[in-house]
């Protein structure tokens, strides 16, 4: 073959193309397909860009560059037929018929979409544990098109997946079965309890504050508290302050009203443990340990929120998850206090309590937490 000069074939104007910024301004084509279990039915909403439909089947009847609602409406039948011929849903190898229930409009980042509402008529929806989907919308005219799928189970848990020409078929293993609100709540509650029990930094922070609660500092000397009632009151003050503070920030963070960098949060949490332990050796915050509990409790709340977001939150049940998780954390914490308090009260007048538990214990906690702090703040591994 002879050499082809770009000037003759592609035109030199084409050259500049090569240096063009990847300024993908508008947006490549996507459709948004969501499937959801509602009661005993599988329902769906499929948002397809009007400009894509214009390209594929023609919507702008008078060809004036402006699509009006009447033009869309006139094509509803065609749109439904076109779209549904490019989507197959099956359960256990058996095709589920799809029935369109309504068509509306919806806005997305790059323009107006038709929103196709439909029902998927599979037998026994509540017993389905896997769905087969075959998607081929627009792939023939635009291989860069993608179908963004969101599948929400009755429990509010959602799975996402992307259809592309390389991956037009998906088999999704799902538990569509109804998990009751109570089961979801219990699930998050358990996570909450579990997290506080394995979250040594939170426990050590709390314990550091509670260790001296059975003692009284008088003239720089620790003396055992006489009244059990006073001890309980002191413990209650600290635990309540900590609980209140971390509940506030946990909620704010889980609802995405505030977010703080994870590394910063984790470092400050470690630092708070160091401070709480040092406070037992050099009491600078003695009578107002509840203030320390409250102030740093705010930061610990962000730490809990990170765990919660790692669990994956279903949008619909966010509130439920938040309350469940938070109550789980509180309960886990109360169990720890319930074990700690009688033992500490019983040991409080022994000398070993002061030397071993208070002094040596606090030194140990401070050292351990200092290591955590360095690891987290400077992203190094010491152990």
């Amino acid at each position: 073959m002879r050499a082809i000069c770009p000037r003759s074939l592609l035109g030199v104007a084409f050259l500049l193309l090569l240096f063009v910024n990847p300024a993908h301004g508008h947006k490549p084509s996507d459709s948004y397909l969501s499937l959801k279990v509602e009661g005993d039915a599988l329902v769906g909403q499929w948002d397809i860009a009007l400009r894509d439909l214009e390209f594929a089947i023609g919507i702008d009847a008078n060809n004036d560059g402006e699509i009006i609602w009447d033009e869309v409406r006139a094509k509803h039948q065609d749109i439904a037929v076109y779209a549904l011929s490019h989507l197959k849903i099956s359960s256990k190898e058996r095709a589920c018929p799809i029935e369109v229930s309504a068509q509306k409009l919806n806005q997305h980042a790059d323009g107006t979409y038709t929103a196709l509402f439909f029902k998927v008529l599979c037998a026994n929806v509540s017993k389905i544990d896997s769905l087969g989907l075959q998607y081929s919308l627009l792939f023939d005219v635009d291989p860069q098109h993608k179908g963004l799928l969101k599948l929400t189970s009755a429990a509010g848990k959602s799975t996402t997946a992307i259809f592309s020409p390389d991956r037009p078929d998906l088999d999704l293993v799902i538990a569509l079965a109804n998990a009751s609100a109570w089961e979801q709540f219990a699930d998050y509650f358990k996570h909450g309890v579990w997290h506080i029990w394995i979250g040594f930094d939170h426990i050590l922070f709390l314990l550091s504050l509670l260790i001296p609660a059975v003692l009284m500092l008088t003239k720089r000397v620790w003396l055992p508290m006489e009244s059990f009632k006073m001890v309980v009151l002191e413990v209650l003050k600290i635990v309540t302050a900590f609980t209140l503070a971390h509940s506030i920030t946990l909620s704010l963070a889980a609802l995405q009203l505030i977010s703080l960098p994870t590394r910063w949060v984790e470092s400050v949490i470690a630092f708070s443990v160091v401070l709480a332990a040092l406070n037992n050796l050099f009491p600078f915050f003695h009578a107002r340990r509840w203030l320390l509990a409250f102030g740093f409790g705010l930061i610990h709340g962000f730490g809990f929120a990170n765990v919660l977001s790692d669990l994956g939150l279903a949008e619909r049940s966010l509130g439920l998850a938040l309350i469940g998780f938070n109550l789980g954390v509180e309960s886990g914490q109360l169990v720890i206090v319930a074990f700690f308090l009688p033992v500490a009260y019983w040991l409080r007048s022994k000398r070993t309590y002061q030397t071993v538990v208070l002094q040596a214990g606090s030194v140990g906690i401070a050292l351990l937490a200092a290591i955590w702090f360095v690891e987290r703040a400077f992203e190094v591994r010491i152990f």
Partner: protein
Amino acid sequence: MFCKRLICMTLIKYPRILKGLGSFSFLIAGLVGFEESAVAQAYIPSDGSQVVETLRKDLWQSELSGLRKKVTAAPTDSAAATRLATRYIEVARKSGDPRNLGYAESVLKPWRVNGTATADMLVLQATILQSTHQFPAALLVLNQALKLDRHHAQAWLTKATIELVMGNYSAAKSSCLRLQGLTTPSIATACFCSVASLNGDAGKSYLTLQQVYNSAPEIDIGLRSWLLTLLGEMAVRLGDNKAAENWFVKGLRVDPNDHYLLGAYADLLLDQERDREVITLLADKNQIDGLLLRSVIALQKQKSPLLMEKINTLQQRFGAAASRGDTVHQREQARFELQLKQNPNTAMDFAEKNWSIQKEPADLKIVLEAAWASQRVSAASPMLEWMRQNKLEDARLHKVLAQLGGSQR
């Protein structure tokens, strides 16, 4: 997601509501309510004659539909298919609408599947891959094209460009050298200079390219605007902002809608704190993310009341790209996180990922700036080493290099 953000916005807008929330339970109850109501957003317009979408109706569209008919009628006509795909790619560039890249790809697809694609078609396919930052895949396709035709000038030029973007300067130079005798001397020289300018010969390349520009009076518009862009960028890197502006303005006279050139010029203006001019320059270019980003940075410096809204628009667009798994925007996203959202850590994550894919001076700049801002100075050492080895010179990097250098000492 969309509605969630709206909710946050209302609460942030009215901090008093938040402060006034007496009890924790009320806060929860209120927000659970929001979640429920956030489900349905679809609507039915009240008026049948309401315009719900505006399409591009320009000269290209009728030409494109004519060509499309031709291709459908004669599916074995390779020249028609090549023309149609070329036009789609050009439209993608001019309008900034990437859907056209998909349309181009669909025209080429049957040929590629059958194994009958011509060298021209393969070069077009490589260009599409390059536009979505699939550089290694693009190089593979170009090698196929060059197997069919060793003397395909466009294939060598596209190859050089991709190697340049990937920071593989020696490969890019040798690809440019292959252009000698295959195309006009100005194109071959410009290709070589564009690489050498980043590879230790900034000053010399600039002078040579000026000679090329001056000695070729009747050059094609496309070549002219390419040369002017290269000259402007070289001048910026050499620290001659005045000359750079001159080249950019000349280039924009050739093609006022050249998005790449507009971006480069806007950056120059931003560096000189000429924010107002940036806003005017890019006023009608908000649909292009990269240009909207520059405009919003200017708005931020102006402390404009429009800022929050525009930041949200950008965030939404990045979100939409991320949900389809796109990584084309990482450089812009790093800049967005660093300059507009003050999230240096997130910015650094994007900048590092971006650096692993492309290595243009702008990619280097953002990764160094993000490393400095996120105090991950040591993470910048591979880039600094790379820069030293390649002898890359860029005046815009002086500030961040001084910062990084100071901290290392």
